[in-house]
């Protein structure tokens, strides 16, 4: 390997060296709510395993944009503190972390209980950290890039029917084109939107599947993060707005009803414009999060009852739910793509004669 590749590899591994930090935990009561919240939520560390009562996790970089510039440090500086006790000082600024949210230390000290939260923007620096879910997203992006560039290259080399990777992915791509894009967007205009629809479909599917794998480095629950699904729905919304043609805006602003109904119809149509992506967002978030909560609750049953006899029953239930969740993973990706194609199709539809 060339020197450049070796150096780049070492740089990638460098932040993670020597960071298996132990945790001084006493023998606490098992708290299923806390376990579930820590699994479905985001985190600045990547929990790998527990050994002998201590938890070993890989600390991920914390990247903050403060009023005086960029501040980066490893989350191991918080020393596993998640309740605002430990103050980290960098470049003359102090930070604390409470429930995986990073605040300025001085503003945090004077905050009351209900002011704490993700939306308190004066007390928080902008947080661009590589958290567990961002790491998972980057990983799935790399996997998708590798898969699809390999597939595209194999088409150039092999002029006959595709084999191997391309042979596996081609029916799925054709499915998205023939069953989702063309029926909803139409023969003439679907080609422009195919890259977006394919991206959405495979990205959501692979992130759902990654969230189902319970061990490091896969267990991050990215599609169960409402901010992530918000951005996905927002992108669909923006595409719909920008591809809306005159007929689309005509139907929203001058719906084909008697004029005296306009004061009712126009607000309804405009609100309808926003509720459709909102439903996309909540549907994906709630489906995936609910599935994870169910699986984690069934596993927690073993620890709540503290009996080995529960484990085969719980294990069978968890197996069943996991298979169902695999179906839900593909189905939710399909439904998201289908509805995006439907909304885009409504926006670009030629005016049909009534």
């Amino acid at each position, binding site marked *: 390997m060339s020197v450049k590749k070796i150096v780049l590899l070492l740089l990638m591994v460098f932040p993670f060296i020597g960071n298996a930090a132990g945790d001084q935990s006493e023998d606490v009561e098992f708290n299923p709510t806390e376990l579930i919240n820590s699994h479905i939520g985001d985190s600045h560390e990547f929990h790998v395993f527990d050994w002998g009562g201590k938890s070993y996790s890989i600390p991920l970089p914390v990247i903050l944009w403060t009023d005086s510039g960029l501040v980066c440090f490893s989350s191991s500086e918080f020393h596993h503190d998640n309740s605002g006790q430990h103050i980290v000082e960098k470049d003359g600024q102090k930070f604390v972390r409470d429930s995986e949210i990073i605040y300025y230390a001085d503003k945090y000290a004077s905050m009351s209980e209900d002011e704490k939260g993700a939306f308190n923007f004066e007390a928080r620096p902008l947080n661009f950290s590589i958290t567990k879910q961002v790491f998972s997203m980057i990983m799935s992006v790399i996997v998708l890039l590798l898969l699809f560039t390999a597939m595209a290259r194999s088409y150039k080399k092999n002029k006959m029917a595709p084999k191997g990777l391309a042979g596996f992915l081609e029916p799925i791509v054709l499915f998205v084109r023939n*069953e989702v894009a063309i029926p909803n967007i139409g023969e003439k205009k679907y080609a422009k939107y195919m890259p977006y629809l394919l991206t959405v479909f495979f990205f959501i599917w692979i992130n759902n599947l990654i969230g189902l794998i319970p061990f490091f480095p896969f267990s991050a629950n990215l599609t169960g993060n409402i901010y992530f699904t918000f951005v996905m729905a927002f992108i669909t919304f923006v595409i719909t707005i920008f591809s809306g043609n005159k007929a689309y805006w005509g139907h929203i602003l001058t719906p084909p009803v008697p004029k005296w109904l306009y004061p009712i119809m126009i607000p309804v149509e405009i609100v309808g414009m926003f509720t459709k992506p909102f*439903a996309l967002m*909540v*549907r994906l*978030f*709630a*489906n995936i999060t*609910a599935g994870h909560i169910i699986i984690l609750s069934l596993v927690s049953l073993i620890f709540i009852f503290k009996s080995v006899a529960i484990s085969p029953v719980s294990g069978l239930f968890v197996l069943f739910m996991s298979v169902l969740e695999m179906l839900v993973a593909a*189905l*939710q990706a399909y*439904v998201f793509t*289908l509805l995006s194609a439907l909304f885009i199709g409504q926006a670009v539809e030629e005016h049909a004669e009534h």
Partner: protein
Amino acid sequence: MILAGIGAGLAVIGAGIGIGRIGSSAMDAMARQPEIASKIQTAMIIAAALIEGSALFAIVVALIA
């Protein structure tokens, strides 16, 4: 806390009834015309997913409360 559970349960009643009806009419249609059974199945799954979506709205509200 308890009322959140009751709210979620009520929402699931609605979803259960709705998806049950979809399944039942899908079966009727497949029995009448077995050759388009796969199209009916696809449509059934899509409709079930959409209804599940609205039931999950209620679950999300129950979780937040």
